């Protein structure tokens, strides 16, 4: 599991920083974080979220800290879901990733500050929902690949 999370984190930075893809590339960092958060205690998940958020904020001159807040809260929330959902149904994982990613975008929008962010409907609703659907789709592919690997 940790190898795949590390691969997702690396892939995210290769695509978003190395190859300069924006919204065209899925948010593998949030996906990796959401997967890891379900395996970690509350404080470790929050710590990992903070590190991931700070790395995203490294390139953010517009709203430094917004990614840190969003990722820390989402990772903490992800860890809490362990006690609420067993997560053994097929629908759970994509639904969990969808909700996590959308929440991350919503918190990021709130934390950005009014002078920097774009309108709520555009950024938090439209872009947020499409981005969450995109990552949820990737999560389905990821879970299929992972289960086929574990069957070998």
């Amino acid at each position, binding site marked *: 599991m940790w190898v795949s999370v590390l691969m997702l984190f690396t892939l995210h930075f290769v695509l*978003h*920083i190395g190859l300069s893809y924006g919204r065209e590339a899925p948010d593998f960092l949030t996906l990796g974080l959401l997967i890891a958060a379900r395996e970690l205690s509350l*404080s470790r998940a929050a710590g990992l979220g903070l590190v991931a958020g700070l790395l995203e904020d490294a390139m953010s001159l*517009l709203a430094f*800290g917004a990614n840190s*807040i969003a990722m*820390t809260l989402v990772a903490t929330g992800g860890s809490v879901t362990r006690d609420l959902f067993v997560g053994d149904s097929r629908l759970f994982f994509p639904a969990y990733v969808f909700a996590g990613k959308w929440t991350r975008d919503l918190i990021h929008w709130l934390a950005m500050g009014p002078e920097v962010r*774009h309108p709520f409907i555009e950024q938090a609703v439209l872009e947020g929902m499409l981005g969450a659907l995109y990552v949820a789709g990737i999560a389905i592919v990821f879970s299929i690949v992972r289960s086929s690997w574990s069957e070998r």
Partner: protein
Amino acid sequence: MPSYGNGPDSGAGTRDLFLTGVTLLLAFGTTYLPQSTQERVSMLLQEGLRPFTALQGLVSEEGARRVRVEALQEELDSLSAMMSTHRAVTDENRTLRKLLDLREALGYDYRPATISRPGTPGSESTFLVNVGTEDGVRASAPVLAPAGLVGVIRESRSSNAVGIDWTHPDFRSSAMLADGSVYGMVESRRGDFREDDRLILNGIPYHQEVALGQVVLTSGLGGVFPRGIAIGTVLRIEEEEGAWRKAYVLDPAVAPGSATHVLVLVGESADSLNLSDSEGEYR
């Protein structure tokens, strides 16, 4: 597998909750750090992301190399034609300045650079250039493309620098019409959608006429941008406030996303310094 069963009443659970609280406080605290500290933290973190930024630099340079040779040849031909007459004009200008006892107009030194853009959330309107303090690039250095102004450097490090383009909310430049008749301030204004971000020529006195299609240049006031860099052309009137101020929407000279190869201003030209006379004064 995760360890279940640490109830909130147990010592481990309390410690976990305490550490979570501290982490959350740290996360919220990052937004309240002074800007200089944020920039230092950001620079430190970027060191950790160096392999990815290095890859970005390589990819951008490769993209810039792919520019068609024919297009470069055409540009070279037109530049040669311009330069053939430019020398005579420069010489004439120098003679006239000497006659009028005016100081020699200073030239500027530029460093060619390749621009690249991170695609992480919150990094919109910012870019990286592959030149830094080692090349003489400082914060507030203007960044130009062949068509006009791209933006300005915000932070400079040893081997690269971070800049903001004109779509950034903090971007401002004093500006004038190409004929020097009207002065104002160019700023970025957010649209309803990201694609609607506009460049606005603001602060134009109500009584002054600005014809649509006129070219807007940097005025050189404020000392950040040298005079005469193209910013855009006047597209339409944006707003009129009472009977004292007007603002116009500009068609930007440079689309920030399409700029790959740029020039970064590093200071006054060394050639111009050689023009000082024996007493060390400019003529």
